[in-house]
C-alpha cells in the first residue's frame, strides 16, 4: 500500500452523487441545432474556417486554433452552417460571443477519419499535433488546451504521470460513470499519455474512496500494466490539480509554478478518453459526458452529449421542471456558475447541469460581519489566510493581497463554505485577481503609450529644430544679399544711369513701390507729350517738305503758300525740339521733384534721348563729361559730410570711389574710340548689360549654327553633364541638412540622368 499524504484544510459538503448514478450513460441524440462557441477553452478564440450555408460533416473542423494556446472547434454532427453570430455562451458573465450555428440534418454523417494503428510508431510531435487538431481541452472544468499542457520541454524530466479521477465536487458523476463503463478506454488513453510523456517513475490514477465501483472497474482494466490506481479519502477539494499532486506524491507545486516544475504532468480522466479516441480512431472532440442532476430534474443521469447541444434540449431529457428550479447552475455547487439562459450550448468544459430546488440549495443568506473565527483559514487547502485577504480585498489593498499569495488561491470556495458569517469570500478573491490583472495590463498599456508619446515629442522637437535651422540659413542668405545690394532703389538708380531699357524696368518697379507720387507722373507725362510733339512736328515737316518739293517740281501756283507753311513747320519742329531738350536738361541738371526715382528716370531718359543720334565717340565723350561732373559733385558732398562729421560720409566715400572707377572706364573707352571709330567696337564696348547678353546669345547661336551636328550633340552632352553634376551636389547638400527639397531634387536628378543617358546614346549613334 502506497503512502497517502494529506492536504491542509478541506471541507465535507453533502455529496449528492447517487441521484445521477441510478442509470448508465445515455446518448442525448442529435438536437435540431448545434451552437459552437469559438471560445470553449482558455486562450485565443478559434477562427472560423467555414462559411454560412456550407454543409459540414460530423467531425469536420469548423474553426481553427489561432495561436499556440488555442484549440480548434469541430462540427459534432452533419448539417448546414446557418449563421455565425454572437450568441449567449455559458460563462459567468452571461455575455455574448461568436458562435457557429449548425442546422443538423439528422444523417450524422462522419467525415473521413484518420485512425492510427500503432501510435507507438508516431513521433512525439506528430502525436501532439493530432491531439491539438482534435481540439481537446481539459474536460475537468478549466479547459486548458491539452496539447499545450502535454508539450513538456525536453530538458524537464517528468517522473510521474497523474490521471485525475477525483471528481471531488458534489453532485457531479460524469467521471465516475466513465470509470464504471469505459475503464478500458481510460486505460488505453493513459497508455498513449505514457508513451507521450515517458514518466520515468510512475503512472497513477487518483480516485476518491466514494467511487468503489469505478475503482474496481479501473483496477480490472489496469491489470497487468504499470498503471496504479490510488484511492484516498474523500474531501473537498482534493480534485484540484495541485492538491491531488500533493496527496499522491507529497510534493508541493511551488507558488506561481507549474506541476512540470516538480516533474509531474496531470490529466483529467475525461480528457484521457478523448485523447484515446482522437489517436486510435481519429475522432476529434465532439461529445462529452455531462451529468444532469438536481431535485428539479425528475430523471437525473449522465448523458453522452454532442458539444453544442443547447442546454434546454439536454434538460428536457433529464425531466427538468422549470417551476421548481431556483436557479440553473453549470458545474457543481462549489465552483459552478448560474446560467441566465437555457439556450446556451454544452461546451467542452460542461461537466454538470445542476437544477436544484429552493430547499436543496437555498440562496445564500445575507453576509454578516466577519467574526474572526478563523474557520476560513482552517478550510483553505492552500493554507492561505482568507480572512486577511478579505479585509485587504475590501480595502483594495492589492499589494498586500499579492503579498498574501492571492494568486495561489484556487478559488475552490471552501472558505466561503466554511464561513459562519456567509461572506462570499471567493468572490472577493476573484474580483481582486481580475482587478490586479487588469492593472497589470493597464500598466503595460500605459508604458507603451508613454513610449509612443515620448517618441512623438522627440520627433516634433527634432522637426522644429530642423525648421529653425533652415529658417536661420535662409535669413543668413537674405542678409548677405542685402549687404551686397544695399537699398534696392539705390541699386536701381545706380544702374539707371549707364543702362537703357533694363534700367527703366527696374526704375519702374521701384516707382511702383512708391505709387501715388503725383509729380513723377507729370514729369513722365510731360516728357511723353513733348516727345510726341516733336514727333508730330517732324512728320508734318516731312510731309510739308514733300509737298513743297512736289509743288516746286510741278511749278504749282500755291508754291508761295507752301513755302511759308514749310517755314512755319520747320520753326515749330525746332521749337518742339528745343522744348524737349530744355525739359530734359532741366530734369537732368536740376532735379525739380526731389524724388530720386523720378530723377533717375528723367536722367536716364534724357541720356538716352541725347544718345539717340550721336556717334559712339560723342556718346563716350559726353559720358566722361557727365561722370566728371558727378564725381566733382559727390567729392564736394563728401568733403562737406566729412567736415560736418555726418554719418553719410562713409556711403558717400564709397559712391565717390565707384564713380571714379566708372570715370576711368569711360575715359579708357573714349581713348579706344578715338583710335578707331569702328561701329563694331562701339557695339562691343557698349555698357548696356542687356545688349551684351543678347549679343552673346546671338554669337553663341551663330557659332552653334556653324557647328556640325556631332559637335552640337557633344555640346549638349557637356551641358547636361554639368547640370547633373550640379544637381547632385545640391541633392547631397539637401540630404545632409535634411531639407524637404530632397525629394524634388531627387526627381530632377533622375530626370536629368535619363536625359543624359538619351543624349549619350544619340551622340554614340551619330558619332
Amino acid at each position, binding site marked *: 500500500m502506497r503512502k497517502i499524504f494529506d492536504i491542509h484544510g478541506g471541507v465535507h459538503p453533502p455529496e449528492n452523487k447517487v441521484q445521477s448514478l441510478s442509470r448508465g450513460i445515455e446518448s442525448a441524440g442529435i438536437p435540431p441545432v448545434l451552437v459552437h462557441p469559438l471560445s470553449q477553452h482558455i486562450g485565443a478564440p478559434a477562427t472560423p474556417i467555414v462559411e454560412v450555408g456550407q454543409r459540414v460533416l460530423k467531425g469536420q473542423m469548423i474553426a481553427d486554433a489561432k495561436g499556440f494556446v488555442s484549440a480548434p472547434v469541430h462540427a459534432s454532427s452533419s448539417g448546414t452552417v446557418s449563421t455565425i453570430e454572437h450568441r449567449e455562451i455559458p460563462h459567468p458573465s452571461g*455575455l455574448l460571443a461568436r458562435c457557429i450555428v449548425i442546422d443538423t440534418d439528422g444523417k450524422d454523417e462522419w467525415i473521413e477519419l484518420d485512425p492510427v494503428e500503432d501510435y507507438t510508431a508516431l513521433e512525439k510531435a506528430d502525436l501532439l499535433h493530432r491531439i491539438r487538431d482534435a481540439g481537446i481541452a481539459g474536460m475537468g472544468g478549466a479547459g486548458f488546451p491539452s496539447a499545450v499542457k502535454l508539450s513538456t520541454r525536453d530538458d524537464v524530466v517528468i517522473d510521474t504521470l497523474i490521471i485525475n479521477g477525483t471528481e471531488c465536487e458534489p453532485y457531479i458523476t460524469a467521471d465516475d460513470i466513465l470509470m464504471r463503463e469505459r475503464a478500458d478506454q481510460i486505460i488505453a488513453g493513459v497508455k498513449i499519455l505514457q508513451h507521450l510523456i515517458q514518466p520515468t517513475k510512475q503512472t497513477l490514477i487518483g480516485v476518491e474512496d466514494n467511487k468503489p465501483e469505478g475503482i474496481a472497474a479501473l483496477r480490472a482494466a489496469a491489470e497487468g500494466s504499470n498503471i496504479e490506481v490510488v484511492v484516498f479519502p474523500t474531501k473537498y477539494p482534493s480534485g484540484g490539480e495541485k492538491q491531488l499532486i500533493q496527496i499522491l506524491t507529497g510534493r508541493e507545486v511551488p507558488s506561481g509554478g507549474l506541476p512540470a516544475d516538480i516533474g509531474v504532468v496531470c490529466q483529467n480522466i475525461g480528457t484521457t478518453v478523448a485523447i484515446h479516441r482522437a489517436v486510435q480512431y481519429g475522432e476529434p472532440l465532439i461529445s462529452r459526458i455531462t451529468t444532469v442532476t438536481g431535485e428539479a430534474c425528475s430523471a437525473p443521469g449522465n448523458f453522452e452529449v454532442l458539444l453544442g447541444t443547447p442546454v434546454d434540449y439536454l434538460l428536457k431529457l433529464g425531466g427538468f421542471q422549470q417551476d421548481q428550479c431556483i436557479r440553473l447552475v453549470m458545474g457543481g455547487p462549489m465552483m459552478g456558475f448560474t446560467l441566465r439562459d437555457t439556450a446556451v450550448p454544452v461546451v467542452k468544459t460542461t461537466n454538470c447541469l445542476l437544477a436544484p430546488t429552493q430547499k436543496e440549495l437555498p440562496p445564500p443568506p445575507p*453576509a*454578516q460581519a466577519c*467574526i474572526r473565527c478563523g474557520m476560513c483559514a482552517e478550510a483553505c487547502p492552500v493554507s492561505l489566510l482568507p480572512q486577511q485577504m478579505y479585509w485587504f480585498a475590501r480595502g483594495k489593498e492589492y499589494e498586500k493581497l499579492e503579498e498574501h499569495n492571492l494568486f495561489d488561491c484556487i478559488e475552490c470556495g471552501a472558505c466561503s463554505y466554511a464561513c459562519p458569517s456567509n461572506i462570499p469570500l471567493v468572490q472577493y478573491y476573484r*474580483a481582486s485577481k481580475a482587478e490586479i490583472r*487588469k*492593472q497589470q495590463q493597464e500598466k503595460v498599456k*500605459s508604458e507603451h503609450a508613454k513610449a*509612443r*508619446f515620448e517618441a512623438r515629442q522627440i520627433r516634433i522637437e527634432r522637426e522644429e529644430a530642423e525648421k529653425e535651422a533652415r529658417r536661420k540659413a535662409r535669413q543668413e542668405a537674405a542678409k548677405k544679399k542685402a549687404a551686397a545690394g544695399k537699398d534696392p532703389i539705390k541699386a536701381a538708380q545706380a544702374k539707371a544711369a549707364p543702362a537703357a531699357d533694363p534700367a527703366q524696368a527696374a526704375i519702374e518697379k521701384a516707382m511702383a513701390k512708391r505709387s501715388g507720387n503725383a509729380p513723377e507722373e507729370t514729369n513722365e507725362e510731360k516728357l511723353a507729350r513733348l516727345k510726341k510733339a516733336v514727333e508730330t512736328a517732324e512728320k508734318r515737316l516731312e510731309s510739308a517738305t514733300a509737298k513743297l518739293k512736289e509743288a516746286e517740281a510741278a511749278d504749282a501756283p500755291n508754291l508761295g503758300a507752301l513755302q511759308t507753311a514749310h517755314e512755319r513747320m520747320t520753326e515749330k519742329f525746332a521749337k518742339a525740339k528745343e522744348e524737349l531738350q530744355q525739359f530734359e536738361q532741366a530734369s537732368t541738371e536740376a532735379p525739380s521733384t526731389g524724388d530720386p526715382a523720378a530723377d533717375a528716370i528723367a536722367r536716364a531718359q534724357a541720356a538716352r534721348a541725347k544718345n539717340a543720334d550721336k556717334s559712339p565717340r560723342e556718346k563716350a565723350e559726353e559720358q566722361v563729361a557727365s561722370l566728371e561732373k558727378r564725381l566733382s559733385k559727390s567729392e564736394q558732398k563728401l568733403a562737406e559730410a566729412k567736415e560736418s562729421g555726418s554719418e553719410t560720409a562713409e556711403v558717400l566715400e564709397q559712391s565717390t570711389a565707384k564713380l571714379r572707377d566708372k570715370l576711368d572706364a569711360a575715359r579708357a573707352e573714349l581713348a579706344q574710340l578715338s583710335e578707331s571709330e569702328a561701329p563694331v567696337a562701339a557695339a562691343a564696348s557698349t555698357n548696356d548689360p542687356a545688349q551684351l547678353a543678347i549679343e552673346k546669345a546671338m554669337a553663341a547661336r551663330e557659332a552653334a549654327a556653324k557647328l556640325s551636328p556631332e559637335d552640337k550633340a557633344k555640346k549638349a552632352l557637356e551641358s547636361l553633364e554639368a547640370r547633373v553634376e550640379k544637381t547632385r551636389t545640391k541633392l547631397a547638400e539637401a540630404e545632409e541638412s535634411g531639407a524637404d527639397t530632397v525629394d524634388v531634387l531627387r526627381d530632377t536628378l533622375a530626370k536629368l540622368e535619363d536625359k543624359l543617358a538619351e543624349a549619350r546614346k544619340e551622340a554614340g549613334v551619330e558619332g
Partner: protein
Amino acid sequence: MIELLTQHPFIAALASLAILGLAFGSLLGFAAVKFKTEGDPIADQVEALLPQTQCGQCGYPGCRPYAEAIAEGDAINKCPPGGEATINALADLLDVEALPLDAEEESVPSVAFIREDECIGCTKCIQACPVDAIVGAAKHMHTVVASECTGCDLCVEPCPVDCIDMIPLPTTVQNWSWELPKPAEDLIATDRDSNSSNRDEAA
C-alpha cells in the same frame, strides 16, 4: 600656537568646532555631487502611476507635466482616466489623503473610430493625436490604430467634418471580470433578523 590653545580653551573649542564643521561640510558637499540623483525621483514615481492617456483633462499638457505638478504639491485628484484607483495609489505613494475625483465621472475607457467614408483627409486629427495612433495621408482616408489609441479624445474636436466617434471599449468574455461583492452589512449574526432601524443603529 599650541600654547595659545592650551591657555585659552575657549579658542581651542572654537577652532576645533570650526575645523569639524569644515570637514563635515566638505564631506556633505562631496556627497551631494557624487551621489546626485538624476531628474526628479518623486515626479518619476508619480508619473509611473498615471495612466499615460495624455489627454490633458488634468489641465496639464500630458501626464508628465501633471506628475511634476503633483510632486510640487498640486492636488492628486485631477485625472479622470485614472479615476479612483490612481488617486488611491497616489495617496499611498505621497502619504496624503485620497480626495474624491475632481471631475463629474471617471472617463470610460474607449477607443476612437473614424467613419472612414466621411473622412476628408485633412490630417488635423493626426496632428492632435499624442501617441501617433492615427494613420493616413493628406486627402486620403485616415484610420485609428485601435491597439495604440489611448482614448484621450483629443482627435475628436479638431475634425472639421465630425467623423470621429469615441466608442467605449466593449466588455468581452476575454476582458470580463467578477465584480467585488457589495460590502457585507457589518452585522453580527445575532442581529440577522432584526428590523432596519436596529440595523441602522448597529451600523
